[in-house]
């Protein structure tokens, strides 16, 4: 039966495409989705990725009249979503949201990720994580250098991260400075925050969720994992300044299965960029509050960004061997 379905569906699509071609040759009309768009979110409901995706979807529905249908498919930091998205039809009616790590480090680090870079069309980034090392202010540390100094005296700190990548970076720090951490991987930024507050761990990695606590003076960003210093904590050095030559930052990204029509890719990217860059939208306000503002990359620049992400991930892995 599925064979029958397939052929007839293909015929139908061909027919529609032909009809569309004939009517649109005169005017270069904008791409319009031919049905509802599924937005598969790679993280659980209520988190940073989910909130952005839902706010953007709602705004697109309002502005463009596109029927956006968000759903959550969490697991393994976005990898489960990527596997599923890969095999969905590439007609622009299925898009996914995750973080760029899913298509860089996470893909390479896993023995069987089940997908590769060329399985996707990269549509648009929305904002960057404000990746930093965080601790309670009550610990008395001003920057990460204080932590290193204390660790050099033989103290072993409990250090929480959110992914294997954090464990790898911690390993690099350990090697560089001859210290030892007990690194623990927790699922999601919120759990890291809770563990820090409850004193279950001494310090941890935060992707931006710590902003409120840092601004109120309850927590402190000790170091930045990005190329540049964290916007709200200009005193914290970057890890690069401290001799760890790696940008651990990630961006939030919309992707689609490989080979979606070029006009669909452009239309989706433009629409998403328009929403997130408009400071009156809830989506834009959310990313500004939590991640310091929108950061939209699309088209060829985005492809280059992903390529670079893979290159740096490979460098990191080599360093570790």
């Amino acid at each position: 039966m599925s064979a029958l379905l397939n052929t007839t569906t293909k015929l139908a699509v061909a027919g529609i495409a032909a009809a569309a071609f004939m009517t649109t040759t005169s005017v270069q009309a904008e791409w319009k989705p031919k049905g509802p768009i599924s937005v598969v979110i790679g993280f659980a409901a209520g988190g940073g990725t989910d909130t952005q995706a839902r706010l953007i979807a709602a705004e697109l529905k309002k502005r463009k009249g596109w029927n956006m249908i968000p759903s959550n498919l969490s697991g393994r930091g976005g990898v489960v979503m990527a596997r599923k998205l890969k095999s969905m039809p590439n007609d622009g009616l299925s898009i996914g949201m995750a973080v760029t790590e899913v298509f860089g480090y996470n893909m390479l680090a896993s023995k069987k990720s089940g997908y590769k870079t060329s399985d996707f069309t990269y549509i648009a980034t929305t904002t960057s994580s404000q990746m930093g090392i965080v601790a309670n202010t009550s610990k008395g540390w001003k920057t990460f250098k204080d932590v290193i100094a204390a660790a050099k005296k033989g103290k072993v700190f409990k250090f929480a991260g959110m992914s294997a990548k954090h464990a790898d970076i911690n390993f690099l720090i350990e090697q560089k400075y001859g210290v030892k951490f007990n690194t623990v991987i927790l699922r999601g930024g919120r759990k890291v925050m809770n563990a820090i507050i409850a004193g279950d761990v001494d310090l941890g990695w935060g992707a931006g969720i710590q902003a409120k606590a840092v601004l109120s003076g309850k927590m402190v960003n000790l170091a930045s994992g990005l190329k540049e210093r964290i916007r709200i904590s200009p005193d914290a050095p970057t890890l690069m300044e401290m001799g760890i030559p790696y940008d651990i930052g990630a961006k939030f990204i919309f992707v689609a299965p490989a080979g979606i029509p070029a006009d669909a890719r452009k239309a989706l990217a433009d629409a998403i960029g328009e929403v997130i860059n408009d400071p009156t939208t809830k989506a834009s306000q959310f990313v500004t509050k939590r991640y310091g503002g929108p950061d939209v990359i699309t088209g060829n620049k985005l492809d280059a960004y992903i390529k670079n992400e893979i290159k740096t991930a490979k460098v990191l892995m080599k360093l570790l061997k």
Partner: protein
Amino acid sequence: MQKAPWTVGLAIFFVAGSLFTLFVWIPIDIETGVIETFRRRVTIGDAMAPTVMAAAILVVSIVMGILAVIRPEPSTSKVKEGLDKQSFVFLARLIVAVSVSLALMVYLGPLVVDMVNAFGGEIGSYRQLRATYPYKLIGYVVGGFTLIYGIISIVENRFSANGALVSIIAVIVITILYDVPFDNLLLPPNGSG
């Protein structure tokens, strides 16, 4: 003295199952071991939890089986344990009703769309129409009706017009409940797209 054949059977089943899991399934279908050492970090691997559980199931079912043989419980409970021939007859009918309804739910919509297209309708693929009336509801309404009416008929042992009416009304009410107020909710099978 009351024998507990079902409890003994259960114990044998779980002993066999846990032995299979421990010695065949876990070794071939889990990548990391019980304890993993990776770049100086010693962590608990993916195999730990299933291995401990399978081992515990093995121990518990052995104890349960032995106790059921040497110290059977007094039959205080009024409900008898296990399945009889009647249960299997009922289960078989239930499974048929559920499978037929789900098959209708999933395949009927696409099939209708294909037929319309085959007769020159040119309405596009089912995927594009999965939020469009009436196509998006065909599978759910027919499949849902079959499920309710099928089961009512099994339990009442007859096909009644009255039961059919109840089933139709119920499906329509449920469809309205989920579909009309919420355009971001898709009824089966339309959200999977």
